[in-house]
């Protein structure tokens, strides 16, 4: 029970911050329907021309498809690597667990620009071997995205594992189940929701990744964020408003879907 509810001052301040947080997202919506080439509020008539551009201009379409493809690959690879790693840490509690977890979380903590330079070094080196796996290639971008997203997947799966009752695993082990059997029949079914959430998060992170992608692509692997970046830096193209609205709607749908599947959190009080 709370003896003190937030007073009117606290609520008013929180409201202002809440408006500040939603404002830039809401502002994009009317601009996307403007009939002109400028970033102005539509006066009188609304137009869908910028949405049409997204489907008619081959650049946008190929950027969307490329980002979706890289996002899917990244999601699968990151989630498998992270789940395997987290299972190893949780089930077997190896010595130096903390050091190992700290090591795999590094790409999340190190400033993105440093990671970008590091991956640029890696991929230009790999380009020496073959152009299809290094700088400015789909495989190269996927590799970089796996590095950048895998720490988030590890955190999500470790959080899911922390809520598992160890006794069910001990029971399986006591009855003679092998490590593989414990994983497949006992633990994975229990953390399935956490693993699915990790896969979803990784997809979203890869789909919108720009900080690193900017360093490791030039003309061939133009992902959607890379395309948006070019449109934002030069003269701002209102088609970006349309794609932004599409992205916001897609994110909202994903979040709502996730909420619908989620079990009610247990700390809900009152």
């Amino acid at each position, binding site marked *: 029970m709370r003896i*003190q509810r937030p007073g009117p001052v606290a609520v008013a301040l929180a409201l202002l911050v809440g408006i500040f947080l939603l404002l830039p997202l809401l*502002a*994009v919506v009317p601009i996307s329907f403007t009939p002109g080439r400028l970033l102005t509020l539509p006066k009188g008539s609304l137009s869908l021309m910028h949405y049409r551009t997204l489907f008619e201009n081959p650049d946008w379409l190929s950027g969307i498809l490329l980002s979706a493809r890289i996002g899917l690959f990244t999601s699968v690879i990151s989630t498998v690597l992270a789940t395997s*790693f987290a299972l190893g840490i949780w089930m*077997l509690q190896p010595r130096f667990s903390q050091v190992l977890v700290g090591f795999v979380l590094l790409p999340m903590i190190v400033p993105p620009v440093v990671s970008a330079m590091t*991956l640029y070094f890696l991929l230009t*080196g790999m380009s020496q071997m073959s152009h299809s796996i290094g700088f400015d290639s789909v495989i190269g971008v996927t590799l970089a995205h796996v590095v950048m997203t895998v720490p988030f997947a590890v955190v999500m799966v470790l959080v899911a594992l922390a809520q598992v009752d160890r006794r069910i695993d001990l029971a399986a082990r006591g009855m003679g189940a092998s490590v593989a059997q414990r994983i497949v029949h006992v633990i994975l079914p229990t953390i399935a929701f956490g693993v699915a959430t990790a896969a979803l998060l990784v997809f979203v992170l890869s789909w919108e990744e720009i900080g690193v992608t900017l360093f490791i692509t030039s003309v061939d692997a133009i992902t959607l964020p890379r395309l948006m970046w070019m449109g934002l830096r030069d003269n701002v193209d209102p088609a970006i408003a349309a794609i932004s609205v599409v992205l916001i709607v897609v994110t*909202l749908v994903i*979040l709502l879907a996730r909420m619908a599947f989620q079990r009610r959190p247990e700390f809900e009080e009152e």
Partner: protein
Amino acid sequence: MRSSSALWPTLALTAPLVLFLAFAYAVPFLGVALWSVTLPEPGLGQYERLVGDPLVQSVFLRTFRICLIVTVIAVACAYAVTYVWVRGSRLQRRLIEICIFVPFWISLLTRAFGWLVLLSTRGIVNSSLQVLGLTDGPLALVRNEPSVIAGMVHVLIPFAVLPLASAMRTVDERMLLAARGMGASRLRIFWSVFLPLTLPGVIGATLIVFVFSLGFFVTPAILGGGRSIMVAELVYLRMFQSPDWGLGAAISVALVVIVAALMGLLARFARLGLMGGGR
């Protein structure tokens, strides 16, 4: 409970990711560190420039200044929303959750674009001000430092919310009850009891937000319009506009050292049990 037979499964499960990151992250980082002492010529010349070159210095100073301002504003804003999120009614909590977590999942580019739409010369804020007759011409609201700060605060508030929330959840209600029983006013209870009890969360949030803000690239690059560049953008420019990879690499190494020092500080707070939320 560890048994020697568990060694092989442990290796099989954890090794793929550890090896992958060793190959794709740790080794290339050493390569970048090597660049910093070999390009354009072997030696510590790039590190001398780091402390001696006025341009590099001014960029570092600007970055620290902007990041400090951003951190203070972001943590204060986050404190207000977290307070209502943790202690408010059910409806208030739901609304706050939407405000915090929906923007969190939206791309940095979309959010930076949102600020451009709001603040540009023909943008929503300027046209509203002119329609209301408050200003004659458009104000320069974007491509300057305040707009960079606004954009960065917007991105960083959600990162401050979680440590603050875990500190606020551990506050013992009986302390507040005792303060009220002794006749303290609402403000007094907040200022003399609640705020000091949540101070460890504030320190944690401050360090996390500051560390994250140091490496910001996309938001300042778009909202700053190339005028007030920060460290991350300087690295980008040194890589792709005036090829000066040695300096870019030296800045990267310096950033990692700063971040490592700050994270060490954070770990010390956590170990001393000052972070709260350790339950």
